[in-house]
């Protein structure tokens, strides 16, 4: 039964126009970033390389692991992608539970299926669709960059150009196994987007207006960013509190801190689990 429900919910999530809208916007930004990085490489990026002895000292900066959207600080599209990421994650299917509650669809389903099964499938579909709307464009960007740049392993001696300090998050993985670093960064973004989607769904159980429950958390992130940049950083704590920066593999003005990230992920997860448990006990009538 759970499998049938999950398949049904996934089909609804991935065929909806809101998923395709978010996915298209994210893909457009990711592709524009890859094209602009590639264009820069073809025009300005190679100047001077012919004079260097690349046989004995290959430029590790000239690598897809350094130039893909998550590590690239030189293109504005990379910044735009991460600024819009939470908004795009809330578009695909996070609104569906509120709509089903208001429209009476939920009562019909709950007479035919166990409420726990249904809500678990619903939350899983929201998690997967929100994550996919963000993670697939990241994969797409990496693939396009890999078509333009060689897969050179970044060298720690080039760290001023790779935007990854030695004490950065996952820096050991980045300099030793960059492919694993790409997978980790995409996975972290996927999980954040999924949890953000389910947290928005949880909020929709309390707040009825779709604009309010979708946009207010997004505006709250900007408030957090403002407090981060203007107050917390000012007193010497150079850590990043918002996903605008900590989801990026590198190139952000502040270092991602594993504790901050864990706390925020656990908070989002806790909100989702508590609301899932509460809504599962709800009477269908």
């Amino acid at each position, binding site marked *: 039964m759970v499998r049938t429900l999950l398949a049904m919910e996934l089909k609804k999530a991935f065929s909806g126009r809101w998923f395709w809208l978010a996915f298209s916007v994210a893909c457009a930004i990711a592709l524009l970033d890859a094209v602009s990085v590639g264009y820069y490489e073809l025009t300005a990026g190679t100047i001077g390389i012919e004079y260097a002895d690349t046989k004995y000292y290959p430029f590790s900066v000239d690598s897809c692991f350094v130039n893909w959207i998550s590590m690239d600080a030189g293109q*504005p599209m990379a*910044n735009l992608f991460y*600024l*819009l990421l939470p908004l795009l994650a809330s578009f695909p299917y996070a609104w569906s539970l509120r709509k089903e509650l208001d429209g009476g669809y939920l009562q019909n389903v709950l007479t035919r299926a166990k409420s726990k099964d249904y809500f678990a499938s619903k939350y899983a579909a929201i998690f997967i669709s929100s994550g996919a709307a963000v993670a697939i464009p990241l994969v797409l960007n990496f693939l396009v960059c890999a078509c333009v740049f060689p897969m050179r392993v970044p060298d720690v001696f080039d760290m001023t*150009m790779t935007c990854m300090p030695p004490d950065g998050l996952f820096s050991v993985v980045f300099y030793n196994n960059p492919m694993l670093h790409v997978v980790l960064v995409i996975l972290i973004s996927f999980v954040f987007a999924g949890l953000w989607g389910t947290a928005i769904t949880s909020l929709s159980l309390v707040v009825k207006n779709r*604009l309010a429950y979708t946009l207010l958390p997004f505006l709250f992130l900007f408030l957090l960013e403002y407090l981060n940049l203007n107050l917390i950083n000012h007193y010497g704590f150079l850590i990043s509190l918002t996903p605008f920066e900590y989801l990026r593999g590198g190139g952000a003005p502040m270092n991602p801190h594993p504790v901050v990230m864990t706390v925020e992920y656990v908070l989002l997860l806790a909100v989702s689990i508590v609301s899932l448990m509460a809504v599962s006990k709800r009477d269908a009538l």
Partner: protein
Amino acid sequence: MSRVAKMAVRDARLGFRRTLPAFLLFSLLLLVQLLSFDVRTSGRPERTSQLGVGDGVCVLLYGSDPFAFNPSDPFRVPALWLLLVLAILYASLRYASSDFEGPGIQVILSSGSRWGWWLSKCFWCAACSISFALLILVVSAGYSLCSGGGASLDVSASTFSLLGNDGHEISVGSPKTALFLLSFAISAVALSLLQLAVSYRFGFLSGFLVSGIVVLASVFAGTPIMLGNSMMFVRSALLSGNAVGIATSFAVPIAVSALSVLVGGLCFKRMDLMGGDQNDDRG
């Protein structure tokens, strides 16, 4: 009183009542920024006087220089400016969306004029955006008077220096600051009308997504088409010859506003109000 005027008065009355919490939170945020700037810079040698009204406006709407790659100093987004502009857009759209159901639909039917209803919503968006711009001025004036900074709209060179614009020794006179505030208000109106036009055709979330992308992209691209550029103090022609010119910062938003009202009205006139599921999807 004409039908349009009646509907506009209704929208203004209901809209400002429902948006009151947003106005209060917005004022609080402005005060926090002014106070924190004051505290942070009080001991600095560049600080020569208390913040005047113009200084306050500059601190609140300063924005940031256009995006430039520097590996040793990564670009920082102007978080406060983004928050203020996005909050204005959200507040104007919030009432428009909540009035597109139940009693709001009844008003369309009973008035018998879709154009009238549409124009009254445009009036609401304009009134809301201008009110937020005025609020910035009022809070700056209130703070300045309380802290003994004076009532002048002049922006001192020391304020620019404290905001990180060390390369310029520029002070801006009162007329230019007033002109900038006017261009801020007109650009905010244009953005909110643009998102309103998109909203009734493609959904309210889509409307916010479009205006949000324009605002966020403005941070990175210094072209006048990106309306956010006319809303940042640092990018207006008041400060830099390379930035958005005064004439452009008025012409582009006025053109966008006129197009949005016209195209949005035409689309709204043809819209199926009994769309059921389709209307639910408008968010």
